[in-house]
């Protein structure tokens, strides 16, 4: 009985998938109508950056990106609301520790490079932030319980920094008569760089804090093994 039901479900799902594939095929077979890509490239010079992806994320559709940062924050707040962080891992041996001492500064350096290069080539705040987050994950895995993050008050300011700077710039432009997130001509580049720098730090800290997996501040929460390590380097 149960197997019949599973079979029936499988057939129905396969039919649904076939229908969707057909719809996709029919859509792709259409005459290519007007697309936003051409329009976006045509006006790229006015955006203050020469990488079209950054132009879409930080200028044409900056409002979406601001809210994506808020989504990231909401995810972290949800994690924090569920309880304190587990204690973390035991301290790494000398070989791994030496490797970590090399990798983490390199990851931070590469993050800075990606942030800057995002203006004219693939890169940008999300990629740079992801590298910072990876650096934090490596620190945590190697036995640093705080994963390189500062204490709770500073951490809270850092995770709101990205959306905060973004929203304040947007609101400031609105108040000075340009319209929300409407950059004045000539200043787009520097405003975008300011927003992206703040967003990079916020994304890096948020991803690391999400990996740490609980509210900061309580420091020495006990995990399953009952051990707690708050040794600082």
């Amino acid at each position: 009985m149960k197997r019949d039901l599973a079979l029936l479900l499988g057939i129905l799902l396969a039919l649904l998938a076939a229908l969707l594939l057909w719809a996709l095929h029919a859509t792709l077979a259409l005459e290519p109508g007007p697309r936003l890509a051409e329009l976006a490239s045509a006006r790229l010079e006015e955006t203050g950056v020469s990488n079209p992806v950054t132009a879409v994320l930080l200028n044409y559709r900056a409002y979406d990106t601001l809210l994506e940062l808020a989504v990231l924050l909401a995810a972290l707040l949800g994690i924090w609301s569920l309880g304190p962080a587990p204690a973390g891992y035991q301290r790494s041996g000398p070989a791994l520790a030496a490797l970590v001492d090399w990798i983490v500064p390199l990851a931070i350096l590469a993050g800075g490079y990606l942030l800057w290069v995002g203006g004219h080539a693939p890169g940008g705040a999300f990629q740079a932030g992801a590298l910072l987050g990876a650096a934090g994950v490596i620190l945590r895995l190697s036995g640093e319980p705080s994963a390189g993050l500062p204490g709770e008050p500073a951490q809270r300011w850092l995770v709101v920094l990205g959306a905060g700077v973004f929203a304040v710039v947007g609101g400031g432009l609105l108040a000075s008569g340009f319209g929300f997130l409407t950059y004045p001509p000539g200043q787009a580049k520097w405003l975008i760089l300011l927003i992206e720098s703040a967003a990079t730090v916020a994304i890096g800290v948020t991803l690391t804090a999400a990996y740490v997996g609980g509210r900061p501040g309580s420091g020495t929460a006990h995990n399953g093994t009952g051990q707690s390590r708050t040794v600082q380097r």
Partner: protein
Amino acid sequence: MADLLILPVLVPLLGGLLATALPVRSALVGTLAALATSLSGLGITLLVWLHGDLGTVLGGWGVPLGIGLSADGLSAALLAMASLVALAISIYAGSYFAGSAQARHFWPLWLLLWSALNGVFLAADLFNLYVMLELLGLSAAALGALTGKREAIAANLRYLLVGLLGSLTYLLGVALLYTAYGTLDIGLLGERLGPTPIAATALALMVSGLALKTALFPLHFWLPPAHANAPAPVSAALSALVVKASFYLILRLWTELFAPIADIGAATLLGLLGAGAVLWGSWRALRAQRLKLLAAYSTVAQIGYLFLFFPLLASLPPGTARDDLFAACVLMALTHGFAKAGFFLAAGLVQRKAGHDRISELGGVAQRMPATTFSIALAGSALVGLPPSGSFIGKWVLMRGAFETGQWWWLPVTVLGTLLAAAYVFRVLSRAFGLEPTPLQFVTNARSEIPALLLAFASVALLGLAAGPVWAILGFGAAPA
């Protein structure tokens, strides 16, 4: 002036960020931000009331490159309801969470949720709506799990996953539309959309994704545990506001964007699901052992009524009769927003006072908490659809529409649902008495009882006796009756 459309999204967002950064002062920051958000929402409603539809495109690029914001009568009506209900919930929450560690988690998430809610009502771009729905779903699930109890976390993890499935299904439809028509702006897309199989597939995908998020029967399975296990102010927000956001979107897409292909057959399918929701939700509410579970199942039923309007709207030509039906559908959604928020807030007070919310053991609550019981009775009468509540007018127009279009089969559904609703509301009220002697004063805790009472009162009096403004802001003639 249209530049100001961003404020109902920006103000709570900034408030939420500040409440995150200042956890010790989160209640103060949160209350002030709630007040400012509410004022900005009501301000936009007033602007629409005075000047008609507003629209702007962010970034100075114009459509289709930039993201549009727009407010018409439908947006403004829901924005006004959300502003008032969310303000009442905020005031209640200030007292409910006072001195509790949950406060510092509640305020940032609550303000982010409110920002996304207003964002949905004001968005004019299909992808922007997806981002808003993600923020809404994520913050709602996190808030629902705030008690930290096992059942609450399990129910809200399911809510989160179901919500993600719903958003992704919606996004799949958006991707099809973008590939076929090359724009994400709802206005532009409406001009280009024709009755093609691709548009029909997109409609099916987007509406099923949103129906999952709005808990339309039989996709409602996640709602009762998630809403019943959340803290009271969160339950109120989830039931009164969050499910309305996806319902609003279905209504808007169905009647505007997809008007060329959303025919009577598809609308009848939605109507049948709505009828199933009315009967099943009301029946389960009648059988519920706990007050908050009863309220949650009642939400399933009330969402059902809203979908009964779709087949009637589809079979009527544009004109006064169709306008009346549309306005009545909006009126029912608004009334349910006020009534269910009031009901959940009052139920939360009962649960706090009694230490439980088992309906069979609620004897004497009415005498101990007269204002709270009165709120439950008022909100309950709006859920049943007794005059003069807004849902009485809504159901009246619904039944008249069913007569006029010859679709008589929606009548027994409405009547049966109403009888069941009366039964489950009176089942609660009949348990609430029985303490002798009747003591004490009417209001026992002003800061938490008054918001619940005002919401319940609004659902009955504000929207019932003064339904005219709802018709007026939607741009229709005078209200019937």
